[in-house]
């Protein structure tokens, strides 16, 4: 069959459904059938699954004209999705095509939820089309004879690639693809991505820079223009609206009429705890909504989530309070209205959420923005402009993630073993490791075989062994088992299962939260009040409670930062605070009385000014700086400036930051004139100073947590298994300390700093910000009391520390207070 005949099959099928293929679908079919790889830029709900399932199936028909008589079993294509929740939908659309075209193909799902039995069955006989997650794909590479499994695989589709791109799961996938390319010569690789700023780079990362596959690839864009309208919810009584906070409950009543007026409303919150609280409070204030509203976030059990998702589809829910767990994939036609509670921090995310409503083509999507504190109205105003100007941000891919590479090499050693000379060029061909050198490579090999860089006497290090023929192989069954357990754990904190004492899974919470509870404490989780009984074998036992509580689990991953694009818009909006009201947006005008208060104590900076405010409270001496560059840049700038000041005089700071600025709080005042005279905002020696300031704070130590887990230094235990591993448990922080003291050139230790620079502190953006400040006039206001701008920052309790005082001196000053139990 030639290409035209094949495509006709797809055209006919669309016609039978009374649909018409979009141009992007046709383009994708043709490119795929012509043997191309590529990146498809298409939003959710646009028919992207049909754009790629079809050519995969057509390609099978082309290669197996006799398929009705002689179907050759085995894996033909893999569809990778970052979220297990999406796999059912993807399976359905594949199933539909296969049934209608009467093909003898099978579809299967393999994720963390797949039962052991089903996995064993798949091991014997793979489905033709496999839907899986990056972690499960890795696990397949960790099983014996994987090369036979993938030999005839003709396609890999990576769905929601933009979500994976800026994460280590993306690196995991880059490595897996580098292997698959060698095993299956005819494999085509396709990514599907929502709109991001660096689409072309996304394609390069997926396929490998300068690779044959990259040369033979295309980017296809779906041009489906959606109208989005942003509507800010502006409090009627601005005077009583709070200056700080992140919950937004003051405006709860404003939300009710919106929910009641629309078929189904999704309320997006930024954190899981905020989600829990909103759900509770809506129900408490409006009991009549019971049964009509639900909650959805990543820590709730799968059954409940599935139930909520299908209830949205069959229109039995009025409203769902959710987190980013409903950002992706799943297509909910009945959703009419979206409410975003608190700043979404990124334009792409906001637009994607807006896009969840009004799915019919040409229909306008309405998204309400609910500010949680007054200054957030500036963000609302900036979002209005972002949507109008269609600004989107980049996703920054990881470079040199040694932890992931170590995990990958051990994975290969666990399955069939590997020959370094065969794997090296594959690894070097990935985007992440394109600059790897032979020396670094040897470092990796040494690390997994002798656990050091030189052989020591009396050492029993055991992980990967080198066989006589040069094969790198794991022979110990224990090592292999532990490694397989570890593969799924590219996560940030130890999660514990919450369940009823009598059984019944409720969800997952971070250990950090539970560690602060004692028996009898009541907390709200999954919409219930639960009494804590005990922790046993990584399980948290609870029972229902009727007691009231304000304890809600906090998840550490909840903090987001503004993208640079968003920061710029935010700055520009704030500067309009000095303009005439008719030149300003409604949101900015609503802030008038706060601006007035701000001007009373201080000023509203203009674009040529950097504002510094100082004042004293009971807590100590506050020094505030407002560059408006986003949380991460402020974190970096705060550490840098704090470090430089600490060189002038022995001093200790606690640092706080938000998207607008940062604070250096100390028990002694800073001589601000000295700061200005010494040109402490200079970009000279920025990198070196930043590096030194990092040693003084905890940032790199926190980054190291992931690295220690992924690289297998720290073993997180066997989920749901009562095995004695206590003798092997240790905290990543202990590892951080011994590396710092005994092996500071360890690449994994170094990686913690590089990652902090590139992903946490965004060093490049810091440089630009400092260059901008160099052109600005610095305005230092010595204030009597906290200003409206300072309020959200000084009340933030999540703080970094930095000190140039001698530890003993600090201890002596601190003798007065002993703190209660904490982390």
């Amino acid at each position, binding site marked *: 069959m030639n290409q035209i005949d094949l495509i006709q099959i797809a055209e006919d099928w669309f016609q039978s459904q009374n649909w018409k293929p979009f141009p992007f679908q046709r383009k994708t079919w043709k490119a795929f059938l012509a043997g191309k790889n590529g990146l498809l830029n298409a939003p959710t709900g646009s028919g992207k699954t049909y754009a790629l399932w079809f050519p995969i199936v057509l390609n099978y028909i082309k290669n197996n004209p006799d398929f009705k008589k002689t179907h050759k079993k085995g894996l033909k294509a893999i569809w990778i999705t970052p979220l297990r929740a999406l796999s059912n939908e993807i399976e359905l659309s594949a199933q539909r095509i296969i049934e209608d075209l009467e093909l003898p193909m099978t579809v299967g799902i393999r994720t963390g939820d797949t039962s052991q039995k089903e996995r064993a069955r798949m091991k014997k006989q793979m489905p033709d089309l496999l839907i899986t997650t990056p972690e499960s794909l890795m696990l397949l590479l960790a099983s014996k004879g994987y090369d036979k499994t993938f030999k005839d695989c003709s396609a890999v589709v990576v769905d929601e690639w933009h979500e994976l791109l800026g994460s280590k799961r993306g690196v995991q996938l880059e490595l897996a693809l580098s292997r698959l390319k060698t095993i299956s010569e005819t494999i085509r690789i396709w990514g599907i991505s929502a709109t991001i700023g660096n689409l072309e780079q996304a394609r390069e990362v997926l396929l490998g820079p300068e690779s044959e596959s990259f040369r033979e690839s295309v980017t296809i864009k779906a041009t489906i223009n959606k109208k989005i309208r942003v509507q800010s919810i502006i409090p009627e009584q601005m005077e009583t609206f709070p200056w700080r906070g992140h919950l937004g409950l003051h405006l709860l009543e404003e939300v009710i009429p919106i929910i009641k007026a629309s078929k189904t409303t999704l309320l997006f919150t930024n954190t899981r705890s905020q989600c829990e609280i909103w759900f509770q409070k809506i129900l408490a204030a409006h009991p009549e909504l019971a049964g009509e509203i639900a909650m959805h976030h990543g820590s709730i059990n799968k059954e409940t989530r599935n139930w909520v998702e299908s209830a949205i589809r069959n229109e039995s829910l009025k409203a769902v309070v959710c987190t980013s767990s409903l950002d992706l994939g799943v297509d909910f036609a009945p959703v009419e209205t979206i409410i975003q509670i608190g700043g979404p921090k990124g334009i792409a995310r906001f637009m994607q959420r807006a896009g969840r409503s009004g799915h019919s083509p040409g229909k306008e999507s309405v998204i309400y923005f609910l500010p949680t504190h007054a200054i957030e109205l500036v963000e609302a105003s900036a979002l209005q402009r972002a949507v109008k100007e269609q600004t989107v941000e980049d996703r920054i891919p990881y470079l040199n993630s040694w932890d992931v590479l170590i995990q990958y090499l051990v994975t290969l050693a666990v399955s069939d073993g590997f020959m370094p000379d065969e794997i090296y060029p594959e690894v070097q061909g990935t985007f992440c490791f394109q600059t790897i050198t032979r020396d670094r490579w040897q470092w990796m090999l040494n690390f997994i075989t002798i656990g050091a860089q030189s052989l020591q006497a009396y050492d029993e290090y055991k992980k990967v062994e080198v066989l006589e023929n040069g094969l790198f192989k794991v022979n110990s069954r224990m090592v292999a088992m532990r490694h397989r357990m570890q593969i799924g754990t590219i996560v940030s904190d130890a999660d514990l299962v919450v369940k009823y004492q009598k059984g019944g899974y409720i969800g997952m919470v971070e250990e950090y939260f539970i560690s602060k509870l004692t028996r009898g404490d009541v907390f709200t989780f999954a919409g219930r009040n639960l009494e804590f009984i005990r922790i046993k074998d990584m399980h948290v036992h609870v029972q229902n409670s009727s007691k009231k509580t304000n304890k809600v689990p906090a998840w550490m991953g909840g903090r987001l930062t503004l993208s640079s694009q968003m920061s710029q818009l935010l700055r520009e909006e704030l500067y309009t605070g000095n303009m005439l009201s008719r030149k300003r947006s409604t949101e900015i005008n609503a802030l008038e009385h706060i601006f007035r208060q701000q001007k009373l104590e201080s000023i509203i900076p203009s674009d040529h000014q950097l504002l510094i405010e100082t004042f004293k409270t009971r807590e100590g001496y506050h020094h505030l700086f407002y560059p408006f560059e986003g949380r991460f840049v402020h974190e970096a700038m705060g550490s840098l400036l704090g470090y430089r000041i600490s060189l002038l005089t022995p001093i200790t700071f606690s640092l706080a930051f938000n998207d607008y600025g940062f604070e250096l709080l100390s*028990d002694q005042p800073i001589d601000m004139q000295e700061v200005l005279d010494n040109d402490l905002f200079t970009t000279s020696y920025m990198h070196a100073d930043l590096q030194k300031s990092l040693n003084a704070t905890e940032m790199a130590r926190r980054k190291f947590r992931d690295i220690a887990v992924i690289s297998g230094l720290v073993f997180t235990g066997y989920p749901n298994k009562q095995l004695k591993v206590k003798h092997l448990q240790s905290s990543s922080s*202990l590892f951080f300390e011994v590396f710092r003291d005994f092996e500071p050139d360890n690449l994994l230790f170094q990686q913690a700093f590089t990652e902090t620079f590139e992903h946490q502190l965004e060093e490049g953006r810091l440089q630009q910000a400092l260059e901008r400040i160099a052109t600005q006039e610095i305005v230092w206001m010595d204030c009597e009391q906290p200003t409206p701008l300072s309020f959200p920052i000084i009340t933030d309790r999540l703080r970094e520390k930095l000190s140039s005082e001698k530890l003993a001196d600090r201890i002596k000053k601190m003798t007065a207070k002993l703190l209660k139990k904490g982390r």
Partner: protein
Amino acid sequence: MYFYLVQNISINNQNFKLHPSGAIFWSEKQLLLIADVHLGKVAHFRKHGSAVPQQVITKNFEQLDRVLSEFDATEICFLGDLFHSHINTEWILFEQWVRSKKVSLSLVTGNHDIINPLRFKELGFELYSERVIDTFLLTHEPEDREGYFNFCGHIHPGVILQGSGKQRLRLPCFFKQPLQLILPAFGSFTGLYILEPSKEDAVFVIGDGEVIAISR
């Protein structure tokens, strides 16, 4: 080069020196008390594929030597968890270290001490499940007994200090209650467990090579 500063305290008319390594020197008895060294832990981790730097092993022995050189001790009494695991290569180093010392050695066994007691006895160790010297009770896990003051380990105590300007510090400490003193872990590859002192407790934190009394 660190300048070590010890803290002197007296209990039941006996004098004790709290050393920043975590050891306590009992002056009248010329006895060193050391808790939770966890030798063998590094090798145990390495044997299971976790690459802890090997220099950590040497550091433990260096610390022991240093303490011995600073006091004229005739005996070291280890308050449990001396060896973290089954016999592994660190045991060989430990044997070498023991044979090079003239000081007498004893061990009050702890939950981690699973090595055959005969192996310790071969090295000249006196073994105890608990030990009473005058009005003092030496144990691994904390123990309340009327009429005795208890020295123990096991907990790896630490405290969090708070100062003005929202300062916080997390430090290992000697944790003294009216009838008990919990020693910090001596080993280099050990964690901390944060305790909350009450009014009658005294806390001596370790930082920058000093032992500093925290008063309230």
